[in-house]
């Protein structure tokens, strides 16, 4: 590999450092590609190789956010999507939307977990009604015992399908909303509205 001018080597070093958020194979691949680009320009006898790229930190940022969003959309993982959206949120509104959707996800997971707990603790899981009180979920310990005294679990074994379906619906809706947000953000990014 032919050596590049000092200025170009320095740019590549800073770029690599700023791309630290990526898996190292991807980072090395990007840096190698820019190196090849600069080497070919240098071989053509061109000067001022790195100026068109702007500051290395800003250039690295243009790789990171789009990639995180697009990759998460392709993989379909809610966790990756939420992280990419939250880290890229530039307004409080965007951040709150992700927070609300994260809480919804937890609710959905909680409902599914309760369906799984019902066969193990039939008396502690379900919907509790009576004595002017109402409770939904799993209740353990003396405090809950006192709080729900006089109530009766009314769902019985129906609790399992009801919690499963409700949990799945909530998870599905939250995931749909997350993907919708991510797609909208990508469109904004690509059309340069936020650039």
């Amino acid at each position, binding site marked *: *590999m*032919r050596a590049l001018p000092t200025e170009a080597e320095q740019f590549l070093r800073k770029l690599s450092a700023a791309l630290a958020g990526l898996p190292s194979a*991807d980072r090395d*691949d*990007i840096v*190698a*590609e*820019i*190196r*090849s*680009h600069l*080497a*070919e*320009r240098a*071989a053509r006898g061109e000067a001022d190789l790195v100026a*068109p*790229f*702007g500051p290395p930190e800003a*250039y690295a940022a*243009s*790789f990171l956010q*789009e*990639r995180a969003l*697009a*990759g998460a*959309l*392709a993989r379909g993982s809610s966790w990756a999507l939420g992280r990419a959206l939250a880290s890229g949120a530039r307004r409080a509104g965007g951040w709150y939307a992700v927070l609300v959707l994260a809480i919804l996800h937890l609710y959905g997971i909680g409902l599914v977990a309760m369906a799984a707990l019902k066969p193990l603790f039939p008396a502690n899981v379900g919907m509790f009604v009576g004595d002017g009180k109402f409770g939904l979920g799993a209740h353990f310990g003396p405090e809950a015992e006192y709080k729900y005294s006089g109530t009766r679990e009314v769902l019985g074994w129906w609790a399992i399908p009801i919690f499963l379906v409700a949990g799945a619906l909530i998870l599905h809706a939250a995931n749909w909303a997350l993907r919708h947000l991510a797609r909208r953000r990508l469109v904004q990014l*690509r*059309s*340069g509205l936020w*650039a």
Partner: protein
Amino acid sequence: MHDIEQEALAWRSQLRKGTLELAVLLLLRRGRRYGLQLVDELNASGFGVAEGSIYPLLSRMRAERKVETEWVDPGAGHARKYYRLSKRGEESCAAMLDAWRGFKSAFERIAGGTDARASNRG
């Protein structure tokens, strides 16, 4: 006058940003290309592209599995990273081209109507 030129320039840059992906897909449909080659072709065609903006785009297209990559050493002292269109990239290219053509003809109907009125008046 200066402001209007500035505005038109900014608008052109927005148009480029919005259509760069389609332009790259179309070039790759003709065969594999490496980054600088794409930059050169885009500039030669008059499309005009900022040198660095191609790589984040290509990186994202790869994450979306629209392109596949391959390092090739032509013995020029540096290896080149070539991009080729995947099946998914071809489909994406066809869909975007459709959308672009629909948009373009709609726009030309509007622009044509404006021209006709202007010449009627004149």
